[in-house]
């Protein structure tokens, strides 16, 4: 993987349509493989190309530039530019979208349903593959590297090569872009193939030729390599399959190392050989260059098959399909045609392709097999291939046989399909300037990119992110596109140090100036008229008098003279000081209070939780949130312990020792004391410490195992009521509350219900009590944070109701053990206690006429349809708001939204935080698709779906998601992409990751639970997602996986894709999801690395139970720990480090997060899903 990334970035992208091709197209599957196979040949060529690209990148235009340039563009250009695939706008490409054209990839045909996809992608993938190979090469051996470079240079140097490349891609991809070639291309393709063959084939003679024909492009490389150097291949095969495989597809290389445990070495050995081939390839490349055109088309298709891996995985799901495929064959052919630019192939088919075709058909038929076969074939030519693949005996087996036979069968090359990593890296590279918010409708950099924000009138993306920055003008358009219109708002987000927090504005006794009609707050969208005496509301157009004290003259442009002196007139985010009119009961609020409620039943004591909490609180209480670091916190604290009964503590400063007040009448909760319960920490320090010392002792011998829960929250609530303040409850709870009391629960975990229509009931609270209680809590401004330490089912779905409705958080530490989980828990607790938080908040989103906020997702409570009530709102909580049209919007004025949050700060000040956001409106769908943000869309979809399972069968929810996405993409295909073969998968540049991310959502534990996933876990995750912001949801669904072979200070290694085949057996990787942190250690990792990290030279001596790395005095260790710390610092929850040794039992858990692979619970692999998606889209289009 790493390799891939490295090279890929440079190479693939660089050249043509980095983004494009690779991402989108990469998909070309194995299906295509067959075709690709041939490609491989070309691919190899590609690789070179890729390399070139690297260099080319800059020069994209340059290198292949001329020739390829155009073509490339089409294909790649997209990538370059902007996301827009739209082959449509080649020209635009530059703009961004235009570039998208590169889509070509998108255009990819889908051979078999799924397979096809991959295949389609294949072509682009080929690029990737190439890169991969490159990488592989590099990895493999010195030679490779050289090769890489070599290639690159060559390519670059050789324009032709690039050309070839570009050419190739173009054809295939862009039917549109390269239209030139497109139509012609296809025909040419055939020729292309030929050419490709020539290119590749040339080198790789016969076999290749065949392949080439089929898949000239991407895969070619591999193929080529194999082909040409059959001998070499042979050599490979012998050495180890791996050898060949690697070649075959980029992935292979990677995988190979990893996979071929045994083989690896050989593989490497083999590599070298390859190296040579590559060289040859390069040679070939140049040739290909010319043919490229053809390649594209052809390549598209089958090429990828090599991906092989997928096959194995895919097999199961898809496989089923395979058989039919046989029958379907005909259709398949269709499919194939689709996939592989039928056109191209078709043509090619006959010519050289024929061979390919066969394969393709085969592909569809037995995808998996095909894939295998494909691969096999591809590499097939590389029979060895199959063998090499470690995991894929299947492959191997099938591969061999089928391979040869249906070389045509292709698999999408994982490298050919859109790569999240690539997109992320591209965005990083692109975003070097601070992002200014002044331009309406401008999409911000991705959440994965570090960038600085300058507030120039719209809220920072740290506060507000939208799914679309170009909203459709009409409801019809919106409906047609199916793109959700939503914003993810994180009102109290923490800003980096170099960005100043929102200014506090005081409008005096009259309170903030607002529109008379819609009550929108003064903001930059208010238009001052009549010399400044009135202002017109940007939301409702109502004209309001300017109060005398706020009057100011206008300058010649109609702006107020003091415009830039006033945050509310020039910034997107700011705060108002609220007056007493904005307070409950027209009374200024009291400072809030924190109440700690600790379970002291047997389990809690035994697990060490009670002791840990009490010890920690002694120091933690000094870090209660405060606005002014110089001052003591105004927050008061109180303590309660409980099991079946509740114990309140009087810790009044004047007492010699704390007093415990037991309330055993839990049926009708009340607070037994007033004075001395909520105290100032500094005043009562001695008494509090004495108390915290005694609590663990007092209950050390408890035998009480039953607990209550409802009364616990009631108690906290009543205490806050009695003190007449808002506040937060920290509840530390261990077990299902079965003691006789309100809110008593019973164990209802029933695995049999999973998958049935009744499954939804498991996510609903089992009693209504907590909903009512939550309502009361919200009314009082009582936010509940729940820390769970369950040893068995505790019914998170029910216990979480109050936290979720009050803006609180749920933390869950299953099988909590003091030794291993202490650190994680304490860090969570510290952060939770210390973080800035607002209380008793009400959020309202106002919009300009034409749209309306219709739905809200997050941790809050709503008693009407407009006001989001949050008992507590902290800096980590995000609320997703969906908008719907209720009228037309105008392109001229755009759409405005203002999110106002009225809250009580932690010092007891009542404030209003206002975030303004303006987006463009468009009447062309293309504009919409050009300015979307997939991460945000996924955030919305996941929340939408996770809420959906409360009322619908899980399967229906999944289907709905898939349908909507298919519609989005189909709409694009239909309305925005330039006409091309129906078989092509064309993705909008901005959404090319939609399939992969969506797949991650679909296979998440919530929507597709594995056998070992408890109901509690699912409910927990469900609730957790509901308040995540975009950055968190992104990494949650698509974990960050970093190779740790080399670490440099100041920068992180480039991530690799979440797939097992990207892991090198000789490497060490770190994977983070925002909740988990893994350190994966390959089985044949170098001793030096082990010594650096663990201080032990032996793999077997690594303690898999360690939760933190040893502190070693070497730069590597230091840097690694630094990285881990920085990861943890970025997330709202502390991630426990888990060391996973390859082939260890715990690896299963780790693999669960390799989301591009097929999951144990039946989730599709990325490649498979892409195929599926393509099928759906095609259905919609037809």
């Amino acid at each position, binding site marked *: 993987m790493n390799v891939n990334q490295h090279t890929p970035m440079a190479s693939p992208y660089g050249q043509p349509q980095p983004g494009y091709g690779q991402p989108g197209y990469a998909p070309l599957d194995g299906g295509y493989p067959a075709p690709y196979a041939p490609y491989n040949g070309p691919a190899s060529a590609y690789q070179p190309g890729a390399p070139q690209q690297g260099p080319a990148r800059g020069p994209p235009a340059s290198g292949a530039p001329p020739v390829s340039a155009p073509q490339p563009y089409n294909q790649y250009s997209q990538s370059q530019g902007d996301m827009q695939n739209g082959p449509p706008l080649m020209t635009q490409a530059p703009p961004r979208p235009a570039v998208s054209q590169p889509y070509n990839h998108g255009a990819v045909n889908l051979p078999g349903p799924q397979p096809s996809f991959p295949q389609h992608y294949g072509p682009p993938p080929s690029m990737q593959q190439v890169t991969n190979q490159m990488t592989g090469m590099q990895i493999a051996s010195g030679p490779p590297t050289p090769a890489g470079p070599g290639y690159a240079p060559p390519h670059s140097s050789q324009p032709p090569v690039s050309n070839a490349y570009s050419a190739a891609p173009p054809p295939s991809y862009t039917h549109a872009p390269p239209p030139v070639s497109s139509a012609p291309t296809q025909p040419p393709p055939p020729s292309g193939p030929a050419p490709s063959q020539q290119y590749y084939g040339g080198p790789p003679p016969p076999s290749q030729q065949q392949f080439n024909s089929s898949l000239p492009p991407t895969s070619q490389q591999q193929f080529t390599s194999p082909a040409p150097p059959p001998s070499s291949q042979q050599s490979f095969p012998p050495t180890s399959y791996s050898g060949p495989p690697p070649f075959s597809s980029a992935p292979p290389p990677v995988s190979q190392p990893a996979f071929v445990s045994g083989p690896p070495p050989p593989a490497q050995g083999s590599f070298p050989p390859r190296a040579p081939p590559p060289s040859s390839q390069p040679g070939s490349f140049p040739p290909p260059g010319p043919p490229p055109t053809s390649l594209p088309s052809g390549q598209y298709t089958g090429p990828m098959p090599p991906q092989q891996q997928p096959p194995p995985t895919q097999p199961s799901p898809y496989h089923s399909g395979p058989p039919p495929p046989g029958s379907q064959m005909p259709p398949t052919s269709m499919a194939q045609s689709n996939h592989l630019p039928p056109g191209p192939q078709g043509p090619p088919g006959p010519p050289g392709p024929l061979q390919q075709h066969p394969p393709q058909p085969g592909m569809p038929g037995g995808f998996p097999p095909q894939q295998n076969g494909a691969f096999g074939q591809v590499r097939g030519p590389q029979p060895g291939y199959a063998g090499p693949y470690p995991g894929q005996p299947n492959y191997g087996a099938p591969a061999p046989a089928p391979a040869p036979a249906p070389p045509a069968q292709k698999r999408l090359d994982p490298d050919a399909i859109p790569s999240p990593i690539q997109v992320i890296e591209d965005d990083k590279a692109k975003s070097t300037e601070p992002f200014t918010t002044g331009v309406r409708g401008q999409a911000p950099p991705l959440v994965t990119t570090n960038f600085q924000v300058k507030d120039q009138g719209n809220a920072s993306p740290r506060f507000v992110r939208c799914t679309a920055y170009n909203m459709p003008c009409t409801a019809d358009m919106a409906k047609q596109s199916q793109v959700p219109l939503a914003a993810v708002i994180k009102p109290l987000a923490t800003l980096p140090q170099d960005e100043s927090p929102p200014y506090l504005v005081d409008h005096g006794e009259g309170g903030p100036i607002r529109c008379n009609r819609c009550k929108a707050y003064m903001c930059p969208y208010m238009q001052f008229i009549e010399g400044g005496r009135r202002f017109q509301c940007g939301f409702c157009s109502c004209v309001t008098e300017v109060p005398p004290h706020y009057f100011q003259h206008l300058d010649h442009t109609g702006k107020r003279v003091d415009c830039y002196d006033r945050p509310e007139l020039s910034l997107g985010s700011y705060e108002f000081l609220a007056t007493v009119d904005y307070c409950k009961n027209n009374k200024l609020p009291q400072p809030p209070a924190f109440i700690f409620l600790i379970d002291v039943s047997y389990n809690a004591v035994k697990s060490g939780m009670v002791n840990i909490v009490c010890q920690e609180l002694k120091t933690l209480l000094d870090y209660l949130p405060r606005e002014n670091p110089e001052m003591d916190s105004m927050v008061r604290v109180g303590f309660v312990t409980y099991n079946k009964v509740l114990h*309140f503590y009087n810790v009044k400063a004047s007492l010699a020792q704390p007093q415990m007040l037991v309330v055993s*009448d839990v049926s009708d909760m009340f607070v037994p004391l007033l004075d001395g319960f909520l105290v100032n920490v500094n005043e009562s320090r001695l008494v509090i410490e004495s108390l915290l010392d005694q609590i663990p002792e*007092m209950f050390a011998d408890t035998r009480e195992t039953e607990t209550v829960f409802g009364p616990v929250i009631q108690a906290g609530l009543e205490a806050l009521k009695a003190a007449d303040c808002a506040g937060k409850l920290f509840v530390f709870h261990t077990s299902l509350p079965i003691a006789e009391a309100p809110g008593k629960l019973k164990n209802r975990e029933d695995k049999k219900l999973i998958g049935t229509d009744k499954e939804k009931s498991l996510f609903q609270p089992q009693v209504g009590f907590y909903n009512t209680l939550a309502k009361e809590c919200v009314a009082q401004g009582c936010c509940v944070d729940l820390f769970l330490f369950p040893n068995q089912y505790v019914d998170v779905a029910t216990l979480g109701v109050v936290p979720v409705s009050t803006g609180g958080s749920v933390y869950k530490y299953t099988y909590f053990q003091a030794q291993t989980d202490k650190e994680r828990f304490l860090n969570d607790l510290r952060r939770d206690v210390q973080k800035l938080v607002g209380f008793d908040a009400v959020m309202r989103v106002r919009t300009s006429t034409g749209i309306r906020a219709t739905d809200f997702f997050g941790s809050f409570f709503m008693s009407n349809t407009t006001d989001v009530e949050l008992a507590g709102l902290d800096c980590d909580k995000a609320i997703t708001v969906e908008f719907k049209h209720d009228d037309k919007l105008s392109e001229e004025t755009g759409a405005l939204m203002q999110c106002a949050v009225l809250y009580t700060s932690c010092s007891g000040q009542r404030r209003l935080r206002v975030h303004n956001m303006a987006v463009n409106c468009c009447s062309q769908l293309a504009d919409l698709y050009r300015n979307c943000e997939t991460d945000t869309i996924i955030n919305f979809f996941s929340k939408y779906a996770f809420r959906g399972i409360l009322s619908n069968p899980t399967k229906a929810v999944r289907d709905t998601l898939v349908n909507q996405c298919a519609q989005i993409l189909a709409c694009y295909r239909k309305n925005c992409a330039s006409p091309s073969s129906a078989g092509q998968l064309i993705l909008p540049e901005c959404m090319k990751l939609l399939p992969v991310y969506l797949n991650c959502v679909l296979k998440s534990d919530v929507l597709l639970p594995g056998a070992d996933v408890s109901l509690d876990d699912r409910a927990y995750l469900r609730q957790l997602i509901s308040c995540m912001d975009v950055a968190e949801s992104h990494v949650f669904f698509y974990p960050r996986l970093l190779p740790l072979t080399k670490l440099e200070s100041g920068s992180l290694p480039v991530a690799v894709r979440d797939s097992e085949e990207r892991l090198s057996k000789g490497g060490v990787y770190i994977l983070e999801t925002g909740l988990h942190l893994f350190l994966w250690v390959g089985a044949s990792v170098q001793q030096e690395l082990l010594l650096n990290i663990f201080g032990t030279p032996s793999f077997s001596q690594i303690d898999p139970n360690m939760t933190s790395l040893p502190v070693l005095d070497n730069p590597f260790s230091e840097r690694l720990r630094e990285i881990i710390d920085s990861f943890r610092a970025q997330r709202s929850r502390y991630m426990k480090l888990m060391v996973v040794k390859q082939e260890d039992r715990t690896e299963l858990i780790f693999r669960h997060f390799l989301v591009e692979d097929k999951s144990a619970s039946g989730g599709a692999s990325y490649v498979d899903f892409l195929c599926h998606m393509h099928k759906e889209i095609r259905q919609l289009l037809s």
Partner: protein
Amino acid sequence: MATFPEYIAQNEERDGVRFSWNVWPSSRLEATRMVVPVAALFTPLKERPDLPPIQYEPVLCSRATCRAVLNPLCQVDYRAKLWACNFCYQRNQFPPSYAGISEVNQPAELLPQFSTIEYVVQRGPQMPLVFLYVVDTCMEDEDLQALKESLQMSLSLLPPTALVGLITFGRMVQVHELGCEGISKSYVFRGTKDLNAKQLQEMLGLTKPAASQGRGPQTAQQPLSNRFLQPVQKIDMNLTDLLGELQRDPWPVTQGKRPLRSLGVAMSIAVGLLECTFPNTGARIMTFIGGPATQGPGMVVGDELKTPIRSWHDLEKDNAKFMKKATKHYESLANRASTNGHIIDIYACALDQTGLLEMKCCANYTGGYMVMADSFNTSLFKQTFQRVFTKDVQGSFKMAFAATLEVKTSREIKVSGAIGPCVSLSAKGPCVSENEIGTGGTCQWKICGLDPSTTLALYFEVVNQHNAPIPQGGRGAIQFVTQYQHSSGQRRIRVSTTARNWADAQTQIQSIAASFDQEAAAILMARLAVYRAETEEGPDVLRWLDRQLIRLFMFHLRRSPFLQVFNNSPDESSYYRHQFNRQDLTQALIMIQPVLYAYSFNGPPEPVLLDSSSILPDRILLMDTFFQILIYHGETVAQWRKAGYQEMAEYENFRHLLQAPVDDAQELLHTRFPMPRYIDTEHGGSQARFLLSKVNPSQTHNNMYAWGQESGAPILTDDVSLQVFMDHLKKLAVSSAA
């Protein structure tokens, strides 16, 4: 034979019994004509320091319906070792241990001087005494401080093995766990929700000691203390600290409101706590309240200050909306407590009423004390409370617990009922009359709390028919059997057997008349009147009384706070009646007709008539009304005192004169329980009203010129004087109204 007064005194001295008639009319018809029924004032624990403890158990009549105790009146056949029960005439064998019995070797119970005898039961475990303090925290800091000190002091007076517990209440009720180290622990309950014993037991995590009853006393001893009730010796310091840290109820009381006081629930919890931990064991719940219950069950007034607490006026108009419910609540508590042998004491110290009217049954049913004072910071409360713990010569508390009184009678007479601090045990038997007077329908009563002065009025009915004459010289016998828990923890049985002669009213009317005990009769009738006043409408009672008996006392009784509610709050009435119903004859007499002594240079102190004519300028008067001790300086004496003559050596006699009543008052103060209010006033002093309201208004503004100018002081009242009253009575008596 001695005179009747001597006989009466002797009987009272020996048996603690005073009968209204000491010779009984022999038939029902005659008895009813006597107007005053045959009745007795019985003081079960009459102090008898000379009484030797008998270390064996009484011998009982073997007849199941009788079970009378062997007594000196029984006929004994020493040879056959048989004795005949003098109540049912059953012949009984002596138990084997009496084998050595003979005419010269008689057991104590057969000796005439032991008509009252006390057995000490050796069986069963020794139960510790239990004292549960229930403390109101809604009071001024000053009061609370005084109360805390009194309570702390009381700890030192308790026997080391006694168990103590503490419940405090305000808006909430807190049951304090004792003996916790490092942290004080208490269970808190809402003040508005009543809990039954089972709920309470669960919530406090208590297990019944009954669980281990099956085993030996050693193991039984263990569970006898629990977290809430622990031996004084163990948690002395802890409890002292706990009391020291007691704070005023912290819940804010807004202006115009009364503090929320959960008295009803607090008492309920106290009762429940003892009920499930020490059933049928002597225990005292000592409740200290600084105001009325204002919330929850048992509330007697709302928390709005603008709504005053009910008055007699409201009661008459049926305007006291909380009274019935509250009374019911406290009655049920009283019944529960008495069932388990627990005493409820009420110490109510507040300037306003505290709801004694509603709560009176708690003290009345259980034999608890009711003490009313203005503040806990007064010597009245402090000394009274201290006196609760006084000890007798043997060093035992002058209190007994969980007593039952059983009355056995000869066939000719049956028991109609009892009036006093007791509850019925509903024991039917051959000696139970169908006519109920007071608490009747039973021959057994439970008296949870007893002290040596506790006196019950028992009413009897002669059931012998006119046509079935009793043989000449026959005697009617009554046996009182009192079983109780001595403060040492021992179970004891005191048996008093009395007998009186029968007389035919037609032939021996003089003898019957001569045997009339005027004092006893007055008190017995007064108790009856008070009982009726409690249960019936006021004016009717007075009319009934007027018709019943017309003697001197009745004049004062009519004017006394026991029957007259004018000028008294419902609480005060309840309080007075409570005291009247439990005190012995002497004290009761004082209550009805206060005693007035005069001190002057004319001679030694002398009792004078309770009459306005006794109020002279050169006299110092000392009035004892039981509830008040009042020293009144006549006009001249007051002037002398003001002039300071007592300071001058040559007027030492004046100083002595001033000192004499004070000394006497002190003596009274020291012996009386509850301690009376001590008032020192003079002619024209505002507190002189206490005196003026008691004396017979023989001189008023209406008639003072008809009498000598110089004698006595006129009283400004419209009340009739004794003279007028008597005149009126005479008229009535001779008229043919009857």
